[in-house]
């Protein structure tokens, strides 16, 4: 039953991604100002949204680990696995944002990159979570998870700064399309394509987040089993 539900979810996600692509390329009208180039928004913005949500999951996992590591170690390990999965999949989506953004910028502004507040804070966010992953990969010992959780919490503080950066400061990056000042927004004919792609990328993100979580839980079980075997061998 569980396998069937998972299979159905995979099929649904693939269907959503295909439908989202069709909507973005063939259904959404060409933008009056930017022409075809505007279609990058259908991958760029959903990727940023998914990255933000997954960094929030990582934050929740990090807080959960720090709160329960003494009282409820089993729950703390689960929280830690969510923290890692959220950070890693968030980095994947943030990488997409940082690669598709300059492509859009090169054609729209004539430059690949500028050190404005939105771009710089996004790069800093990516660097913080890459350092989080490197810490988890190379640090050893019982304190590694605690240090990673602390870094994960500090890293998440950058998310609202990235989100608000083009509201607080004048940036080369355009003002927010949604939730911006008066007059902002998207032409209603483009909204369905945008929402389909938002749904599709969230579905894909949840899928790989669940897979990453499962892999990490399995890793924890192997590590615990090996530790137990080593302990048995010494007795």
């Amino acid at each position, binding site marked *: 039953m569980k396998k069937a539900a998972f299979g159905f979810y995979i099929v649904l996600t693939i269907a959503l991604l295909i439908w989202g692509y069709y909507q973005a390329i063939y259904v959404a009208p060409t933008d009056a100002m930017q022409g075809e180039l505007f279609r*990058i928004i259908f991958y760029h913005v959903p990727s940023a949204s998914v990255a933000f949500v997954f960094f929030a999951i990582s934050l929740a996992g990090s807080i959960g680990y720090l709160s329960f590591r003494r009282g409820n170690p089993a729950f703390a390990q689960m929280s830690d696995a969510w923290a890692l999965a959220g950070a890693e*999949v968030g980095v994947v989506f943030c990488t*997409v944002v940082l690669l598709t953004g300059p*492509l859009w910028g090169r054609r729209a502004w004539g430059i690949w990159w500028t050190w404005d507040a939105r771009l710089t804070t996004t790069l800093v966010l990516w660097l913080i979570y890459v350092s989080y992953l490197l810490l988890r990969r190379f640090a050893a010992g019982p304190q590694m998870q605690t240090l990673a959780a602390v870094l994960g919490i500090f890293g998440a503080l950058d998310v609202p700064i990235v989100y608000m950066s083009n509201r607080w400061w004048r940036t080369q990056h355009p003002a927010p399309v949604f939730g911006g000042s008066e007059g902002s927004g998207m032409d209603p004919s483009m909204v369905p394509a945008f929402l389909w792609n938002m749904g599709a990328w969230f579905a894909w993100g949840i899928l790989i987040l669940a897979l*990453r979580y499962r892999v990490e839980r399995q*890793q924890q079980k*192997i590590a615990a089993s090996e530790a137990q075997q080593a302990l048995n061998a010494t007795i």
Partner: protein
Amino acid sequence: MDEKAILDHQFVVAAYTITWVVQLGYLAWLAFKWRAQKRAANRSARKAR
């Protein structure tokens, strides 16, 4: 199609391709890790026996 439209189209194709390369590359890495882990788990189980 004028030159601007062709270039715009190429940039859109590049952005979509990069997105898929990153996402599918990560999925492949995850599958590789999963397979390696399964082998490690089997080895560990055999050792325990």
